[in-house]
Each structure stands twice: as C-alpha cells, then as structure tokens.
C-alpha cells in the first residue's frame, strides 16, 4: 500500500516530464541527447553551486530568514542561469531548431533537478507507513518547476540566441528572466520570512509558474512574428 503511494508520487513528480517529451514535437525530432546533455550540465552547475554555498554561506542554526544570507543565496542562484547559458549556447547539437532546443534543454534541466532534489526524499519518505500530504505537494512543486525551467530556457534562448528581436521587448524579457531566475529565493522568503505553509507556497508556485509560462509564451511568439 505504501509502495503504491510511492508510485503515485513518482508518477506525479516525473510523469509530466515524460508526457511533455512524448506529446510535443521533441520526440519526433529526437532531442533526447540534448536533454541528457542539459541534465549533465545541470549536474555540473549543482556541484559548482554547492561549492559556492559551502564556501560563502554560514550554517544557520535556526530556520529564520536572514536577508543578507538570502541575498547571497540568490546571487549564487544565478549560477543556474550561467549553466543554462552554457547549455543553450555552447552545446553543439545536430541541426535542431531553436524552438526545440530550448524546450529540450528546459526539460532536461527540470528533470535533473527533480531527480536530484526529490527522488531521494520520495524513496525515503513516501514508502513509509506514515501518510503525509508533503510528497504529493512536492510532486506538484516539481510540475511547477518544470514549467518554470522551460520558461526560463525560453527567455534565455530569446536573450542569447535570437539576434533580431524587437527592441521594445528586450527590457521585458530581461525583467521576466530575472523574476524566473529568482523564484527559488522568492519561495524561500515566503516560506521562512512570512511563515507560509507548504501547501500555500506550492499553490503560489503553481500560479506564478503558469503566469510566467504564459508571459514567456507571448514574448516568444511576439519575437517569432517579425522573423517569419
């Protein structure tokens, strides 16, 4: 019965990634290699991030919200953006359209993130007899994260790969990218600084991820138009 629950949580956490891959043209154009490479880049980025965090951050005894530490953490969080930049620009792919490239990178990125952050807690926790909503919420969080990663990858590809984009949209793109990139810090602030409970935080994440996805989709199609 508890293994059942574990499988449910796994489906919720990793199912959307698979569905996204198979449902969109990504599968038709065989972009799995790109995703795997992006995941490997994520792994490298995560290690760099860990080293940075371990070097610059003090271990806080309590769970309180320290603005200075959080600022530092947010800055280190931009290592992610650097990693994404590397994945988007430096990785050589077979001729794969920009359209699919950012999706494949975002997908690999989100999948690696889910595997690293959520698989172990799931395995440890969700198989136990004790029932909590935490793992279901965590699965929902993974969904939000997938959407956010793809949005960020979309914005990144707009910033770095597309040359002829409307000048008026550039600040908006950058602003959105910054917002998306600082999402982890924002949620951390909500959870610790304002004391929000986990369900509320997850709800917020889901909502913002959908909003950001919509905005970046609009931006992307707006940039698409003049070129086509």
């Amino acid at each position, binding site marked *: *019965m508890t293994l059942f629950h574990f499988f449910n949580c796994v489906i919720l956490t990793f199912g959307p990634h698979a*569905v996204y891959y198979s*449902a969109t043209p990504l*599968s038709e154009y065989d972009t799995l290699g790109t995703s795997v490479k992006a995941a490997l880049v994520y792994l490298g980025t995560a290690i760099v991030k860990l080293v940075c965090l371990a070097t610059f951050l003090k271990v806080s005894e309590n769970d309180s919200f320290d603005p200075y530490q959080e600022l530092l953490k947010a800055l280190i969080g931009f290592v992610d953006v650097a990693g994404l930049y590397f994945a988007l620009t430096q990785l050589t792919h077979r001729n794969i359209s920009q359209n699919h490239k950012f999706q494949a990178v975002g997908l690999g990125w989100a999948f690696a993130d889910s595997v690293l952050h959520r698989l172990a807690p799931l395995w440890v926790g969700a198989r136990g007899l*004790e*029932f909590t909503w935490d793992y279901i919420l965590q699965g929902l969080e993974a969904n939000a994260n997938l959407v956010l990663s793809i949005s960020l990858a979309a914005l990144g590809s707009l910033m770095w790969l597309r040359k002829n984009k409307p000048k008026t949209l550039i600040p908006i793109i950058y602003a959105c990218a910054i917002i998306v990139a600082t999402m982890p810090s924002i949620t951390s602030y909500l959870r610790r600084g304002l004391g929000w409970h986990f369900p509320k935080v997850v709800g917020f994440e889901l909502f913002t991820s959908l909003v950001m996805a919509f905005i970046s989709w609009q931006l992307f199609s707006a940039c698409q138009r003049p070129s086509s």
Partner: protein
Amino acid sequence: MSPFKPRQPQMLDSMYSMIALVFILVACVELCDAATVVDVYRLIQYDISGVPFGSRLATLNHHAGSLHFTPGADLSRTIVIIPIRELNITFVKEYITQRKPLGGLLFLLPQIFDFKDKAASRSEDEVHDKGLMKTVLAELEKLLVHANIPYPVYFAFENDDIDAVLSDIKRNDATGQPATATTGGYKLVVSAPEPKRIASPIITNIQGWLPGLKADGDPNQLPTIAIVASYDTFGTAPALSVGTDSNGSGIVALLEIARLFSLLYSNPKTRGRYNLLFGFTSGGPYNYNGTQKWLRSFDQRLRESIDYAICLNSIGSWDNELWIHVSKPPENAYIKQIFEGLSNVANELGFEVGLKHKKINISNPRVAWEHEQFSRLRITAATLSELSVAPDILESTGGLSDNRYFVNETAVIRSIKLVAESIARHIYSHQGENIKVFADDSSLAVNPYYVKSWLDILSQTPRVAPFLSKNDPFVMALKKELEDHTHEVNVQHEALDGMFTFYDSTKANLNIYQVASVTFDLLLLLVLGSYLIVLFSFLVITTRGLDDLISLFRRPPSRKVKTA
C-alpha cells in the same frame, strides 16, 4: 511515440550512476519515521507445566480502534486501545473468556504508574479515586494473568501524543467508520522478535550473618534468629513489576533491621547471645521456591539452631492492623512467645497485631506464605503481613498498582520498629518490659531517610526473577548493602524449579503511524492518470494541432490494414 530509440549508450551511462545512487539509498534508509513512538510493556507470557498463559504474541501490525466501535464490528484486525480510566471490564472479560478474535489490546495506564517519570508520581493530582483504580486493576490483572490470550497485549502510559491519537480514533469510531485497511486511520506497529523461552531461569538468594557473642568455653552453638524477606516480584507486565509493597517494603524493613542490629552488634557490650541471620530469598511468587532451596542448603545443625524465623511480606500499606501468619497451632509455646512479643510492642506503638493460623497441607504444592517453607522443615516461623488471608498463586506479588504511589512509608517504619523491638527484647531477655531499645531521637532510631530512599529505589526496579541475570545490578546492590551491615554475606544461585516457563521480550517500542487508505491511493492514481492524459492532449493540441491527436488514435487500425 518512442522516446528511447537512439543514443542508447549515452543514456545507459547516466542510468548506471542513477542506479548506483538508488542502491546506496536503499542500503542507508531505515524505515522509522513514525508520527509517535512510545514505550510499551508486554503482558507476561509463561507456561505452567506446559499449559500456556498470558499474551502469546509480541509483534503488532494492525489498525487502532477504541471502545467506541460499532457493535458487531469485526475486531480481529483491530488493536483496541483501552485507557484504564474508562476501562470496561465486562468488555475485556467477554472477549477474553469467550476467546473472541482481536488484533491486539493496548491498555493505557495513568501517568502515576510510570515509575520512571518521577515528577508525575509526585504530583498528587489526577487519580482521586485511587482505591477504585486499584481494584479495577487487580481485577484486570487477575483476568489477564490466568488467561491464554492468542494476540499481543501491551501496556503503555498516557501522554499527550497518545491521547491525541486516541481522541482522533474515538472521533473516527463515533462516525461509524472503524479503521481498516480501506478507510485509513492509525496503524500501530511493534516489530519485536518472536518471544523466546528463557532457558533455565536462575534465582538468587542472599544471606548475611550477625554473629552473636559466645561466652568463653561454651561448647553449645548459639541460637539463631532468622529474618527473611523474599525480594522478587511477578506482575502482569514484567517490565513494570516493581512491587513496592510486595515485597519492596519487606526488603526495606529487613535492610533497616540489619542496619540497626549491626550498630548494636558492633559493640561487644551490646552484642547479644543470639546469631542473627538475614536472608533475601527469590522465587517468592513461585511457591517460595528460593526459600525452599535456601533452607535445604543449610546443614542439620544450623537448621536446628534456628530459634525462630520472621518472614516479612507486604508491610507497606496498612493503617492499624497487622497479621502474624503461622502454621502451627496458636497454643504452641514458641508461637505464643513470638506472638506475645510482637503484640506487646504493637500495643505500645498503638496498633493491633492479629494471629492467623493456617494448617499446611503437605500434599498441596501451593505454598502461600514464606514461613510455610520453614515449617515444612520443622523450624518455628511466622510471616508478618498486612494481608489477612493467604493470597492465591501469582497474586499480591507486585502487580501494576503496587507502586510507590500506594505505599505509605510511615507504615513501613512502624513495621520496622515492631519487628526490631520485639527481636531486641527477645535477645536481651526483656520480654514484657517496657524498654525501648530503638527509641526515636536516640542513636538507634529508625532512619526514615534510609527507608524512604530504599523504597524509592525499589519502586523503580522491576524484579521478576527469571528476567534478572545472575549478576544483575540490583542483586549486586542488595548484596553490597547487606555486606555493609552484616558479615559472611553469601550469594546462592539456584535454578528455578518446576513447572514455570517464561518467555522474554517484555519491553518494546510502539510506532504509531497515520496511514492513508487504499481507496485514497486508488483515487489519487485515477486523478493523476487523468491529469497526465489531459496534459498530454493539451500539449499535443497546442504544439501539433488537434488532427495529430486524433491521428494518434487512428494509427493502429491503419497498421492492421497494412499487415492484412
């Protein structure tokens, strides 16, 4: 539709590390993340001549229920949690005597019974009707100890966590939905190994001497007075069987009497012409098996030199009457002497001592009082006790309610005065005279702090003989204390005779999990499945258009056409 076709080698590389990671995790993880973990104490499991008694199982893994279950519900997979405060004895009786199936029983004892929690036992709040609690517990214990119960029975102490769980369960039960695998609720898990038989339990007797002053050139052996107390207990839950009254009070009295006489005997001027023999015997609940072995080990001369023996048994919670139990007729000169010695002192101390005569039936294996073992060997002996009638086997031997909370130390002190004074008068031949050897405020006064501290220690030490090892710290402490007061302290190890077989695993950890039901998981699976399908359709429609989605479902028939 097939995402894993090409680039297999690359995939495999990353998969290997993943698999390794998963295996490491599996190895490290221990599944113990329960909401609550409580200490539980198992009902004793024992055989008498091969006939099983007590709780026969230790492992527990069922849903929890309360007494508010719907009538007629099947409880064979439910652990019923029963707080002693609201114990429904008829329910328990019905289920045990008719051997109805149950998943298990968990009794919750009020905090005051927790001898480990000192603060709780000091607070005088809570149980105002402690007399009632005691009778209820006694009835319950009698029921449990003499029944063969095919499921686990555990005792735990009330605390906030378990109270919260219980009130949740009650609320659930009140709505008419008893917790089973399909409706969720709480699951109680005790993972204990199969109870194992204790191979050849050992009982330990301890004796110490205070030798009397022998006149020069006197060829005769000095007469001996023996003071004996059995120190082990037998209780419903062996790990909780501290027996403050039966027979902790006897141990304390014996130690204090030994201390007082060691003061007297250390000075040659006050050293009496009697040897004093102090004995802690084990196996008390089992027909005083240890006493029997101990006496058998004496040689004939020593046995004959014993003038009389006084056995101390349950002298910690009486008000104004004590009983002297003898097995020789009261007209017997020696008995008369003992009784008069004691009752004179008792009158001076302001209470009554009664004499009870109970003949020994040699053919009956039951030995109700410790002195009967002496009497069987023709040694004059009497038992001093607050109990007016002989207890049945395994009764009044340190049950659940027999703890510090119910024992009055002034009663113990008065008993000590009674015994010490009467023995002193006998030794120094002052019978019938009103002389106080152990007067208060003198250097020979009974030390209430000594009595109190030993009573406190004994009230925290479960002493069920089969579970005490040969060199148990408690036995060693008792020996050391007797060594401080007396000479020639001997420890005698004997095998516990006869028909009793005991099983271990008296203590365990109970994990309480809040669990979701199977239906919930099924529902969740359904919801997730539909979510993924909707997501899939949505993505296909937005990225490739509706026609693609429809064509996905059309493809198989077209293939069939091709193959045909």
